[in-house]
């Protein structure tokens, strides 16, 4: 750890010096290229003529040092490179080395430590991209190797140093949503020493969990969290605590704001300015002692939403018993305020203040965690189930309130129509979920909720007749299947079939559930006192609005979209904004907790150093050419580009160096070539292209393959690694993302001598930069039209979407493309 600190300081110090030196390089210092040829322990020297290659390289302009060894990415070989940089005045490093990517990283690191900017290194792979795939035609392979080396050297001569920059990062995080996910993430971060602001739109923390009473599969209290590290009274930190006695509010660095929501977000990653609107509670949290005198005098009674409207509450109220903060709140929608003011008179601590106003609080935070959860879908739209029309048709959340010993019926499941205990209960699964008419996805937790409620009822009232109508029972979590087993043992009945209608018989006040028992292939009419709908779980209200304020995306189902579910969970495409819990998808409590920990770690990792250090591999705008068009701001997958007024009435694009990921999709989009990548200049692409096509050495027509640095290049790598073979006339030019490719590049390739052009990128929906591969496809289609107009067969151009494991497909494609171009004959350009 300390070593790393030391080295980063060192490089920072040298960085400044290099910046000046970098400028000198451009103006005065000539490029002195060192070329290092690894023969992979002699393995590829059996195929490639290394003597010829060495002699060839020596003749190339700018090359001042050439070395050959078994390997160059570690050990003695790496020392040769370092020595050449330190003592032989080599200021551009070209290494032909296998072990893709690993070697590139190792060499760049060593070169940096030797005092040279790591971006002045170009690594090419003669083994996997040349020797192995062309092992049957060694002479042709050697000629291709010359072209590849020439391309690398030509590019290296044009390389420019790229500096590191630091951006400030405020070590403070805003957590939106005070349910179990938000509380867990807030606690984690506060324990790690970050300043945390936790905001909740309701007057009380707890979210959906507070209403759920118990959690499966342990049947323990829903509202139980891990004890904060700061709880001095807890023996071990693994202890669990009810949220109201967890000392949650006493965690240092944790600021809890209830009745609050985000209305504006400005600034960027590491330094957001968030405006939070705080609605008045009309009760001073610091003064209220929760004595309950106010409710005894309040004259306004309304159905209690917290208790599924099964009971009434006053206009001044508190959710019992599991709440934070332990202070009453006034419902502004129904309170008569100064017309009445009885609560003000009776309050012994003068806590009620009817003149409280809405406040706006500005928070400066480095990161934001969204934990806004999910809610139960209102199933009244599904007419055949008559929810909202028949009082005895209820949802799971309503049943959960009944099963709460502190709830509206003190733990007894009753039929709301006459409040008599329900003796026959039917559960209906998949209500509004797995249903293309409403929500096509599986809400994932409803099966377990039904099993939980069914067993809780059977346990307390064994005589109750409980039936669950299901399409599929999904018990995929740990211990979940045992839960299902237990329900069967307790006598819960299961009917495979989705009911088509619920009918009410007014004569007996009985509900009749019509369903086909598919296993018996018999139509059933199940009589019930109470029907419980396992309604879908959908995104919380205001999710759309919040996503818009934060500038993050929602998925097709309306939940917050994770950057990549496998590799970057809890991240959004916008750096510094994280998401977790039910806001991403409906989740059970253990998974929510896990997800919250993940978001907290991501936020901490992002902000822990108080700064964000980044290589400036970004896009830069040439303001002289740029003007008024919207292409790049709209296309940038990261929202890194904005249009800024230039003073003379024109607008020019401005790239945020912090947000830009350096993919180059903007470059591929710009119609006037006004934007370019610092790490891949147009001159470098041209030089590489010309060099790759300068030597053929085969009897076949030259084919140039543009490949992205991600899946596309990996497919090229793997075709060599797996000993696939394809002809040596196919030459690969690597770009960061195929999105960088312009139509002009493709035409240029034909001009430079290519008889065919391949574009090899990621899968359209698997692009590492979201849209690059799709944009490239469009560009290819456009270029095909142009080729046709020029009288060139459009079949000479093709896009391929490949991944690492499809090396065989790359080899096939390269062969097929060669054959196709051979068939078409020689391309004659005027």
């Amino acid at each position, binding site marked *: 750890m300390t070593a790393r600190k030391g080295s980063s300081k060192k490089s920072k110090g040298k960085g400044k010096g290099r910046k000046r030196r970098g400028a000198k390089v451009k103006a005065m210092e000539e490029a002195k290229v060192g070329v290092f040829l690894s023969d992979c322990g002699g393995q590829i020297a059996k195929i490639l003529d290394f003597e010829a290659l060495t002699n060839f390289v020596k003749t190339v302009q700018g090359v001042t040092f050439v070395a050959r060894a078994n390997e160059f990415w570690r050990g003695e070989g790496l020392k040769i490179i370092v020595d050449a940089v330190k003592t032989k005045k080599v200021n551009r490093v070209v290494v032909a080395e296998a072990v893709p990517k690993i070697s590139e990283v190792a060499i760049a690191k060593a070169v940096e430590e030797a005092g040279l900017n790591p971006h002045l290194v170009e690594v090419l792979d003669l083994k996997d991209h040349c020797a192995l795939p062309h092992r049957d035609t060694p002479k042709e392979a050697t000629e291709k190797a010359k072209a590849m080396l020439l391309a690398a050297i030509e590019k290296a001569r044009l390389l420019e140093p790229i500096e590191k920059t630091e951006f400030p990062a405020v070590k403070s995080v805003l957590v939106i949503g005070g349910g179990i996910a938000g509380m867990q993430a807030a606690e984690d971060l506060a324990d790690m020493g970050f300043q945390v602001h936790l905001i909740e739109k309701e007057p009380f923390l707890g979210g959906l969990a507070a209403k759920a009473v118990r959690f499966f599969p342990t049947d323990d209290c829903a509202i139980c969290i891990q004890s904060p590290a700061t709880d001095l009274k807890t023996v071990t930190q693994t202890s669990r605590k009810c949220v109201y006695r967890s000392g949650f509010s006493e965690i240092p660095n944790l600021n809890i704001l209830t009745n609050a929501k985000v209305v504006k977000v400005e600034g960027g990653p590491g330094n957001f300015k968030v405006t939070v609107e705080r609605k008045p509670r009309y009760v001073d949290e610091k003064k209220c002692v929760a004595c309950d005198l106010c409710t005894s005098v309040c004259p306004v009674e309304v159905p209690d939403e917290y208790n599924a409207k099964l009971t009434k509450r006053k206009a001044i109220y508190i959710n019992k018993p599991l709440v934070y903060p332990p202070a009453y709140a006034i419902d502004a929608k129904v309170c008569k305020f100064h017309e009445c003011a009885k609560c003000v008179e009776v309050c012994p601590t003068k806590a009620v203040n009817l003149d409280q106003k809405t406040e706006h609080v500005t928070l400066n935070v480095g990161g934001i965690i969204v934990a806004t959860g999910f809610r139960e879908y209102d199933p009244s739209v599904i007419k055949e189930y008559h929810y909202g029309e028949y009082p005895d048709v209820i949802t799971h959340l309503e049943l959960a309130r009944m099963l709460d010993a502190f709830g509206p019926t003190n733990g007894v499941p009753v039929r709301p129509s006459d409040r008599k205990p329900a003796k026959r209960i039917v559960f209906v699964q998949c209500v509004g979920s797995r249903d*293309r008419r409403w929500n096509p996805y599986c809400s994932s937790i409803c099966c377990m909720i039904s099993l939980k409620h069914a067993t809780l009822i059977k346990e307390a009232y064994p005589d109750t007749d409980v039936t669950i109508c299901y399409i599929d029972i999904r018990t995929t979590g740990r211990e979940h299947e045992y839960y299902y087993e237990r329900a069967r043992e307790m006598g819960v009945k299961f009917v495979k079939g989705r009911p088509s209608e619920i009918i009410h018989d007014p004569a007996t006040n009985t509900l009749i559930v019509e369903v086909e028992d598919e296993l018996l292939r018999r139509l059933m009419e199940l009589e019930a006192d109470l029907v419980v709908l396992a309604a879908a779980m959908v995104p919380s209200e205001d999710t759309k609005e919040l996503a818009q304020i934060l500038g993050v995306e929602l998925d097709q189902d309306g939940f917050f979209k994770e950057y990549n579910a496998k590799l970057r969970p809890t991240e959004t495409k916008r750096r510094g904004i994280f998401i977790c819990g039910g806001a991403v998808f409906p989740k059970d409590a253990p998974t929510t907790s896990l997800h919250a920990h993940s978001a907290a770690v991501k936020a901490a990792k992002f902000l822990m150093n108080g700064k964000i250090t980044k290589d400036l591999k970004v896009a830069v705008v040439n303001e002289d050419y740029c003007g008024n068009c919207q292409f790049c701001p709209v296309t940038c997958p990261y929202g890194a580009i904005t249009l800024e007024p230039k003073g003379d009435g024109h607008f020019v694009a401005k790239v945020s160096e912090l947000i830009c990921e350096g993919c180059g999709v903007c470059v591929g989009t710009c119609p006037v070539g006004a934007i370019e990548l610092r790490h891949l200049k147009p001159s470098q692409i041209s030089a590489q292209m010309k060099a790759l096509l300068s030597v053929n050495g085969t009897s076949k027509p030259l084919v140039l393959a543009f490949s992205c640095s991600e899946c596309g290049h990996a497919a090229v790598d793997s075709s060599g690694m797996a000993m696939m073979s394809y002809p040596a006339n196919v030459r690969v030019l690597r770009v960061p993302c195929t999105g960088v490719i312009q139509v002009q590049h493709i035409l240029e390739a034909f001009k430079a001598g290519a008889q065919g052009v391949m574009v090899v990128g990621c899968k359209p929906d698997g692009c590492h930069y979201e849209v690059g591969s799709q944009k490239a496809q469009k560009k290819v289609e456009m270029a095909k039209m142009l080729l046709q107009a020029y009288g060139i067969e459009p079949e000479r151009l093709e896009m391929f979407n490949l991944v690492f494991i499809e090396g065989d497909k790359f080899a096939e494609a390269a062969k097929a493309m060669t054959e196709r171009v051979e068939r078409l004959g020689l391309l004659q350009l005027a």
Partner: protein
Amino acid sequence: MSGEKPLDFTKEITSKLGGETIARCYQCGTCASTCPVTRTTERYNPRQIIRLALLGQRDEVLKGDSIWLCASCYNCQERCPQKVEIADVIYALRNIAIREGNIPAIYTEFANGLMSEGRLAPISKFLEKKRADYGLPPLKPTGVEAIKKILAATGFDKIMFKKEGTPQ
């Protein structure tokens, strides 16, 4: 299921007008439970027809009488959570069956009436007598030539009156 190719039959159905959505079915049984015909006879169950079709039981589906019992009330289609167009799938299956000569007698009768008299419902003696009682003129075949032309142009006559059991 030996000798049958399940995927092929599914593909065949989804390529027909009305049959496109069949593969979405996850066998929840809402259709069967809401069907007025299933309520009255065990010979018809839309869920089972779809199941048999998806399992490639081509002959059982096309040669039985089940698919002809649907009353086209569209209750099932309205309530299907997967938006399988069940009643339309049944129509697609009927169309396949007809092309292969699996035509229930009543449909042949309808077709005959259409071709010979320009009417689906035949003019019965009873009807003629009733008309006479009311002083209405007797019914005559109407527009037969025109209908024949239309039916020939659409290929209906060939489908309907080709030799039975020889698939086209």
